[in-house]
Structure formats: structure tokens, C-alpha cells
């Protein structure tokens, strides 16, 4: 059973741990600095923390297993922009938005998704990085656009547990893309999504879709869930086709989704007011769960604030443990809640943390 988790916030990284009675806040790291992403690497026990210093840029720190010390390692860096480039995007790292471990057969391999929308690979635990130019150079990138930020960004990286060379990424706004050859080539994987913020004739265009978050079921890897800007979608064929899920209660708008590690039919969402308002639906926080592939949902509220609640759970603000029963949720206004029964009842960890960017189990 999970007994430790990490909360990356606007003002540092916080650990929480479980005693036999409850979960508690524990140590802090990088207090005062924005921690935009945290990756506990299950393969070797290393912990990675991505920082975004307001003045001095994005940084990446690594803590080796058993160590108390953090080491600053390299950050993804864009190459020099060709002088004849017409790309309006600045080729400079703004933020590390997502981190993922490579497959178990790829020790030391890490993936990083950035703002602007670069995918980077490290083969040496973050000591060096290289841009995956095959994706950066797809012609469709010229149609990508900012979603939430001024520039497009990669927020979801789903490595296929059956084949480490197969990686699906989600981009706001650039749709979903899949490689089956370790990043040599890419194909679009957003067919079926619908961008209602576009002119009608462009609404089905795959490279303008805004999947807020995409997650893959580890034990049924063809099953993917997506909280999109315009609703909820799921795929049962590794993203080849997406089907809209229209039965979610309260709101089909939100940023986050999590999938049960061993049951691809079970997924969680946190509904929010659409789409420029962006706070908990009806100012009362709820988590919705489907256990039948999106046919039906249950809305859970136990232990969550139900009055004057303006919390928003952002893209990486919901995590589920390996057993599928323990969930951790963090909000943009510093609320953190934990459930040990699959989302039915929630324990308050804190309501006074800094704005929460990401949560993850050790």
C-alpha cells in the first residue's frame, strides 16, 4: 500500500506520509521556489523535481535513492533557431511541464515535455537531454497553439508498458501524437476529438485539439482517457480513435483525469465550471468516477468542501496509487485531499498549501 506521496507547488515540494491512522505533511524541499513537476522513478527510486525560477529559468534537480541531497542536473535546451525559420515560437525553454520514466528495459531514460511544445529525451538520468526533432519538425506544429499558456506545451507522456519505444504524448493545443519507434517518426492520434473553440470546418482537425490531460491504463495499455477542453474522450485502441463520453455529471469541463492501474474501464475526473471561469463546478468540489468505461458516473463529495469552494484541480493534480484505491488530489488554491476508498471519502491534508501543480505517489 502506498505510504508516501509528493506535492509540487508554487512554493516548493512537499512530502506526505501515512501512519496507521492518517496521512500527514512531512518534509519540504525548495521552499519558496515553484516546483512544476515531480517524477518518482519507480525503476530505481530516484526522485526528480523540475523548478521554474521566476528570474533564473527552469531547472531540474535529482535526488538519488537513499540520499538526502539534491543535485542540479541539466535541463532540456532547444537548439539554435535557424536564421531562415519562420517559426513564431521562441526556441527557449519556458517550463518543464511533464516528466516520464522510460520503460523498465531502458534504465536511465527519461522523457520531458516542455513549454514551448518540445519533447526531450535523456539517456542518462537527466545529465543531458536532446530534443526529439522528429516531433518538433512535423509540419503540423505550425498549427499548434497555446492553451492556458501563450505557447503550446506537452503535458502528457504515456509510455506503453508493452513496448518502451511506443510513446503517446498529449499537447495543449496540438492534439495527441504517437511514436512506435522510440521517437524516429510520429503519427497523429486525435481522431474523434472535437474542438468547439474552432470554426466549425476546423473542429475535427487533429492538430488543433486541446487534450488537457491524457492517461493510459498500465494493465490495459490500449485504453486511454482524455479530459479535453470540450469534454471527456476515451480510446480503446491506443488513440487510433477517440469516442466522446457524454454521461459525466456536473460538467464535462475540467483539466485532469486518472485511470485505474488495473482496470481501464475505471477513471476519475474533477468537474469544473467551463470554460473561462475555471473553478469547482457549482463552487462545490466533487470527484466523478466511472467504472464502466464512461457509460455511467458517480459523483463523490464526502470530505470535500461544498460551500464557497473555488478550487481548480489542474492537469497533474490527481494521482492514483498502484492499488487503485488511494487517490491524492491537489488544487490551484492549495487544497490537498486524499482518499483511501477509491474516491468515495476524502481526508483533508491541508487547505493552506501554495497553489498545487502536481501530485504523485512514491
Amino acid at each position: 500500500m502506498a505510504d508516501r506521496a509528493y506535492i509540487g507547488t508554487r512554493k516548493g515540494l512537499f512530502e506526505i506520509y501515512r501512519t496507521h491512522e492518517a496521512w500527514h505533511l512531512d518534509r519540504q524541499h525548495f521552499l519558496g521556489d515553484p516546483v512544476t513537476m515531480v517524477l518518482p522513478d519507480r525503476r530505481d527510486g530516484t526522485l526528480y523535481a523540475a523548478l521554474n525560477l521566476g528570474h533564473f529559468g527552469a531547472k531540474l534537480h535529482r535526488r538519488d535513492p537513499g540520499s538526502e541531497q539534491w543535485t542540479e542536473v541539466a535541463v532540456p535546451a532547444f537548439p539554435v533557431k535557424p536564421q531562415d525559420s519562420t517559426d513564431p515560437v521562441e526556441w527557449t525553454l519556458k517550463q518543464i511541464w511533464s516528466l516520464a520514466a522510460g520503460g523498465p528495459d531502458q534504465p536511465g531514460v527519461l522523457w520531458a515535455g516542455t513549454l514551448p511544445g518540445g519533447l526531450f529525451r535523456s539517456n542518462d538520468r537527466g545529465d543531458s537531454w536532446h530534443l526529439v526533432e522528429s516531433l518538433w519538425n512535423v509540419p503540423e506544429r505550425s498549427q499548434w497553439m497555446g492553451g492556458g499558456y501563450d505557447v503550446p506545451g506537452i503535458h502528457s507522456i504515456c509510455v506503453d508498458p508493452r513496448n518502451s519505444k511506443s510513446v503517446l504524448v498529449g499537447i495543449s493545443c496540438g492534439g495527441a501524437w504517437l511514436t512506435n519507434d522510440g521517437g524516429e517518426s510520429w503519427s497523429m492520434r486525435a481522431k474523434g476529438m472535437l474542438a468547439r473553440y474552432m470554426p466549425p470546418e476546423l473542429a475535427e482537425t487533429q492538430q488543433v485539439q486541446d487534450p488537457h490531460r491524457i492517461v493510459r491504463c498500465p494493465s490495459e495499455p490500449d485504453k486511454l482517457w482524455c479530459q479535453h477542453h470540450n469534454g471527456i474522450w476515451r480510446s480503446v485502441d491506443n488513440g487510433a480513435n477517440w469516442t466522446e463520453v457524454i454521461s459525466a455529471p456536473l460538467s464535462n469541463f475540467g483539466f485532469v483525469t486518472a485511470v485505474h492501474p488495473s482496470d481501464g474501464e475505471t477513471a476519475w475526473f474533477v468537474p469544473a465550471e467551463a470554460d473561462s471561469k475555471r473553478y469547482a463546478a457549482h463552487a462545490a468540489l466533487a470527484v466523478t468516477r466511472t467504472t464502466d468505461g464512461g457509460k455511467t458516473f458517480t459523483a463523490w463529495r464526502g470530505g470535500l468542501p461544498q460551500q464557497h469552494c473555488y478550487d481548480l484541480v489542474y492537469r497533474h493534480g490527481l494521482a492514483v496509487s498502484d492499488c487503485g484505491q488511494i487517490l491524492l488530489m491537489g488544487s490551484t488554491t492549495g487544497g490537498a485531499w486524499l482518499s483511501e476508498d477509491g474516491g468515495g471519502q476524502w481526508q483533508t491534508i491541508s487547505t493552506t498549501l501554495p497553489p498545487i501543480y502536481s501530485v504523485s505517489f512514491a
Partner: protein
Amino acid sequence: MAQLIFTQQLARFMDVPQVETSAADLRGALDAAFADHPRLRGYVLDEQGHLRENVVIFIDGQRTRERKLLNDALVPHSKVYILQALSGG
């Protein structure tokens, strides 16, 4: 020798050097500092070698405006302050 004074805000992340250099322009002076303190480069410049958006440099009391080439001239006794801009707070 021109003198480079880096903000002590950097002391949270590294030993902050005091650098004296005979470089004739700002770029040369910064390169001299980075040669002995390579990690400092990524805190002051982005990967394109441009001054970070929320870092500001003053040379002899004048704020520099050229943020890409960093070719402002230095004189032998220039005092160069590399500071955090309030815009990044």
C-alpha cells in the same frame, strides 16, 4: 579591469563569484565569468545566449537594453551589476 557584481539572490543556488575582467564588452565579460563558473550561465542567459527575461544588467549606472547580442562596451573600470528584475517576482 571591469568588475562584475552578481545579485546575492543567486547565493541560494551557488557560490556567487566576484569577477574582474579586461573584456571590452558585456558578452566577453560574462563569458569570462562563466568560464570559471559554468553553472552560472544558465541562471543569467537562456540556451540561445540571450539575457533571461527577468534578469537585468546595469553598466556604470545605465540599464542595458540590448539583450541578445550583449555587446555593450565596457571601459577599464566599469562596474557591471547583474540583478534580478522585479518583473520576475
